[in-house]
């Protein structure tokens, strides 16, 4: 039902495009531990794709495979139809993949604005020397990039903390700043590693609103890992469910919710051997 080559239409009437990233029979081992066992799924343009699973299911490992940080021992990662070679993180960024981290990784001593500006790094072409002089092209480039950064600051409603050093911010806001930085890269694929972890209900609602409008407004393709089932079911178009490194479910939130294997993994199952 979801395997039409040109994508599909979501329940709320958004057109989902062709496959952006495809994972084919991925297996990832750390020594003797198989973190991911022969998993295949795809991410389509414009969709919100969630990866869920209990603790230790291999979700973060999966995200790291998508981001190119881990290279799987077996299987293929196809990005925009091309087999992806082993890459350095900055090359991944240049390809248009941005991410946030489970444990926030911001430049604590820098202001929010400067942090967001670092997200624009891949879009800056002028060299170090002309940037230091800050004349002509470099100045124009910075102005243009600042404008993008400001639009994102406006979008995520963090104007009030624009000049505040990140270290002074509470956790929930740091998460938002991290999202701003990732968004500043204008990614074609945005990876969110537990964007709601440790948040209260109100912060979760805010974050959900941002994720949805990001997807709506900029058409950003989003892949996210999340523990909070309620949030995932509300946000995502399709969900991959993992347990002990294996894929146990894949489909729309409704399909996944009614999947017996998923229910067992989450609620537990009686062991009567």
């Amino acid at each position, binding site marked *: 039902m979801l395997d039409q080559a040109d994508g599909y239409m979501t329940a709320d009437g958004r057109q989902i495009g062709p496959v952006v990233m495809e994972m084919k029979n991925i297996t990832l081992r750390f020594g003797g531990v198989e973190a991911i066992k022969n998993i295949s799924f795809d991410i389509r343009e414009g969709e919100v794709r969630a990866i869920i699973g209990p603790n230790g299911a291999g979700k973060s490992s999966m995200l790291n495979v998508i981001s190119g940080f881990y290279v799987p021992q077996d299987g293929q990662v196809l990005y925009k139809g091309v087999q992806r070679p082993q890459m350095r993180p900055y090359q991944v960024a240049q390809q248009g993949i941005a991410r946030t981290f489970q444990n926030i990784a911001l430049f604590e001593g820098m202001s929010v604005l400067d942090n967001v500006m670092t997200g624009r790094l891949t879009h800056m072409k002028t060299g170090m020397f002309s940037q230091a002089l800050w004349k002509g092209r470099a100045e124009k480039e910075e102005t243009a990039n600042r*404008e993008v950064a400001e639009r994102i600051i406006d979008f995520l409603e963090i104007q*009030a903390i624009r000049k505040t050093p990140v270290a002074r911010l509470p956790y929930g806001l740091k998460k938002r700043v991290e999202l701003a930085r990732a968004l500043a890269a204008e990614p074609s694929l945005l990876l969110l590693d537990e964007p709601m972890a440790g948040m209260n209900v109100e912060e979760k609602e805010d974050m959900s609103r941002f994720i949805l409008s990001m997807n709506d407004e900029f058409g950003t393709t989003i892949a996210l890992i999340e523990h909070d089932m309620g949030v995932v079911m509300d946000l995502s178009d399709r969900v991959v469910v993992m347990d002990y490194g294996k894929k146990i479910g894949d489909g729309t939130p409704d399909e996944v919710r009614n999947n017996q294997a998923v229910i067992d993994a989450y609620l537990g199952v009686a062991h009567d051997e």
Partner: protein
Amino acid sequence: MSKTLDGAGGLISVPALLHRNATQFGSAPAYREKEFGIWQSWTWSQTNEEIEALALGLLDLGVAEGDFIAVIGRNRPYLYWSMMAAQMVGAVPVPLYQDASAEEMAYTMSHCGARFVIAGDQEQVDKVMEIQSELTEFEAMIYLDPRGLRKYDSAKLTQYSAVQEAGRSKRAALQPEMKARIAKLDYDSTCVMLYTSGTTGKPKGVVLSNRNVIETAKSSSEFDDLRQTDDILAYLPMAWVGDFIFSVGQALWCGFCTNCPESADTMHTDLREIGPTYYFAPPRVFENQLTNVMIRMEDASPMKKRLFDYFMGVARKVGPSILDGNPVSLIDRIRYQLGELAIYGPLKNTLGFSRVRVGYTAGEAIGPEIFDFYRSLGINLKQLYGQTEATVFITAQPDGEVRSDTVGVTCPGVELKIAENGEVFYRSPGVFVEYYKNAESTADTKDAEGWVATGDAGFIEESSGHLRIIDRAKDVGQTGNGNMFAPKYVENKLKFFPNILEAVVFGNGKPNCTAFVNIDLTAVGNWAERNNIAYASYQELAGHPEVLATIQSHVEEVNASVAQDVMLSDCQVHRFVVLHKQLDADDGELTRTQKVRRRIIEEKFSDIIDAMYDGSDTISTTTEVTYEDGRKGAISATLDIRDAAVQTVNSQIAAQ
């Protein structure tokens, strides 16, 4: 320019004033708004063009003369323009409170039968969508910020810029109609309709004419010598009459620049960047700023703290006198100048008050310490007394006659009289036309000769001619002993303590007085932090024994001060409760302008009030609360009821 009662030099409507500004001060800034980190600005001639384009677009949408157009959103130039564009096509703008709930909006919008709505963003659009089935006259909505609205059914929705675009492209065809409608506007046409915040019962729609608005803007601008080069920061709700008079009335009359903040959270940063020359804030804002300064000084290094304390001492001693132009010794002047260099100047800059020439506070009484703090820094902070029905101005303090306990002398053109029962009446060119669709209330408030009842009890001080307000006339009652009961008088004294955010005093017809107290989370939270007192919630902090002890000492201090006043000595607080929740407009306990709704609180917390009078030491209660998104929940708590020491006054002897 000739100035007659029929409008000065033909300036008898908002479009006329706008036209004058566009030709006379064409290149001067009229509006600024911070967006994307930069102050965007529009000159008067650009503003005129924008408003005309929108007005033409409104014609294109089919706005008829006399239609009501609801305007909802935070302070933005575009929404001020919306109001003026409505006036250009003979419609009546009705600004609504942006944080009003959908039900509240349903009431006001169906009361005036608004055909059109201009909404700031998705949040406001959602609210109107939610209630549109109740709004029989509602036809179309114009939205400003398209974020999140892409997927909405567009049948009734049009983007602001699209309306302007349509107006521009059909300029030739529509302009004659617009000009004809402008020409029909006279001094008695309706300028705006503003809903009162509704301390009691449903809000009432106050109709203000061009005469009301323009005459008031003119006389008040002259009173304070407002200039074309002034700057104001527009951050108070657009639905509030004060904002309409400052940001539309006076701004148009003088031609000064209205600055809109980037968002509600950035207000203080924006205030600092703009440095307004004319500033208005309710006492609460000044209180918060002072609390913040004091908290930061607690954390400052000892050297800085000593400098601050020394120079603030100097300022308190001579600052107000210098501001009022009274004689001050040379030594003190030199000390004050040093203080200006070291402390006052930088502090004013941090607060955004470096350029303030005229500052006003009104709405509630301001604590004398707070008031004197700002005045001693050299900020010309004054008080005024007004209401929606008077187009704001009833009395104001002239420069050089400023005190914290009066509200000033009558504004130019205003007459005042005090009724037998102490209620204040006034008559002025600003007196409102009527309450819309409510002849009964209009007749109750305004008599045939044009005298309007303020609902406030007060008296004119003989020595200075200044008006002093005691309380709402209907709240003034009698205690069990037959003495005067003026709850606000006591509440204000309580609220002057930084730890107390809100207080409600009961005692009408009761044997003695009791009170509810809300702690100020900023002040008390900071104190708790410094004293290593851990707390998880507002409720827990509010119930902490040490907090209760502190509040008790405040209450007892107030009792001592109330006891001094022979007339009101019976208003001493015998017992009090520190409430487990903050009184909130969302729960109906406060009005949208943050005034206490006594009756509702009395009903809602009747169990606690009963417990205060039946001698119990604790009371368990459950209270319904409304969250910001409209969902409801409940919180339960067991509250301590405390006895406060009262001063015995033998009023019989004192009276003799």
